[in-house]
């Protein structure tokens, strides 16, 4: 069968479909494909998925369990993706693609022991601080926004500093570092908050 014949045959096969079947089939395919894609992405957006690697489960997850975002007075909990993955679809996809770098380092075993993790903690923390600063702490503000804060219900210290933060255009991460995980060795960031040598 020559190429011409083949094309003709294909055209004949196509003509067999009516516009309606094409439309219905297309929609069905679209729903399954798009739904499946998002479903899979949401699967990777759960705490269970995050702590399926021991790097997360043994280090940051354990530390997070002692913090207010894990357990608090009113019983509201923020899990890993609530803070570390954007809610909006576009930003989420970008973050997910960037996160493929983490798969590479999982394979390389860059932080597969506590020692390796501690050695890299400063760099990893700074990456996250930078990301939050750049997005004006977008993920924090999914729950905590300046607009819905009742400053009068806050303590003396929080009251003063939050009002100043609004005026100065500060963002959450500027002050609230190390609230859900332990801080790295802060010698290089700010020597005045650590004992001992003033520079390392």
């Amino acid at each position: 069968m020559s190429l011409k014949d083949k094309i003709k045959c294909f055209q004949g096969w196509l003509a067999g479909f009516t516009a309606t079947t094409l439309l219905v089939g297309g929609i069905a395919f679209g729903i399954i494909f798009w739904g499946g894609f998002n479903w899979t992405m949401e699967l990777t957006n759960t705490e269970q998925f995050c702590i399926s690697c021991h790097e997360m489960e043994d280090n940051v997850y354990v530390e997070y369990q002692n913090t207010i975002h894990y357990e608090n007075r009113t019983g509201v909990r923020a899990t890993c993706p609530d803070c570390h993955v954007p809610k909006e679809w576009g930003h989420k996809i970008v973050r997910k693609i960037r996160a493929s770098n983490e798969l590479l380092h999982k394979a390389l075993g860059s932080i597969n022991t506590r020692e390796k993790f501690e050695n890299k903690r400063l760099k990893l923390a700074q990456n996250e601080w930078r990301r939050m600063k750049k997005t004006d702490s977008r993920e924090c503000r999914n729950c905590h926004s300046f607009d819905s804060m009742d400053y009068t219900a806050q303590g003396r210290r929080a009251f003063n500093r939050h009002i100043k933060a609004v005026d100065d255009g500060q963002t959450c991460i500027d002050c609230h570092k190390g609230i859900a995980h332990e801080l790295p060795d802060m010698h290089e960031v700010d020597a005045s908050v650590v004992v001992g040598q003033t520079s390392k």
Partner: protein
Amino acid sequence: MKKLLLAGSVLILGLTAVVPQILAEEQVNSLRGDHALDENSTEPEMKNWQLDRDPIPRDHVKQPPLIPHKTQGYKINLKFNKCMSCHSWTKYKEAGATKISQSHFEDRENNVMANVAARRYFCTQCHVPQVDAKPLVENTFKPLPTVK
């Protein structure tokens, strides 16, 4: 007769030593209170942190100032000291906090260090936050008006 007298005095001496002990034992409770062993002891009352407030005045000279705010979740370890993120010399103005005293920069040979001395690093060894607890025993201490 002499033997009888000796035995008598030994008995009296012995009694004077033992009787007060028996009496005292009846008044002493264990730490869990006066409860039958198979009963639950009373649960200690929950104490709440006192809300943030202005600095609490000292009651005597060189008293480490009390902490007038919650310190829940504040960590002090070799990598970081949460207190210092407001009370250090570089931060206190911005934070509106009390500045750490210069005495905390001296080691035990009185050498002045460039940073907080190790022996003064663990703030909560001396400075303590407050809860709404009533004093366990009556206290009539009053500071001297001259050095208050």
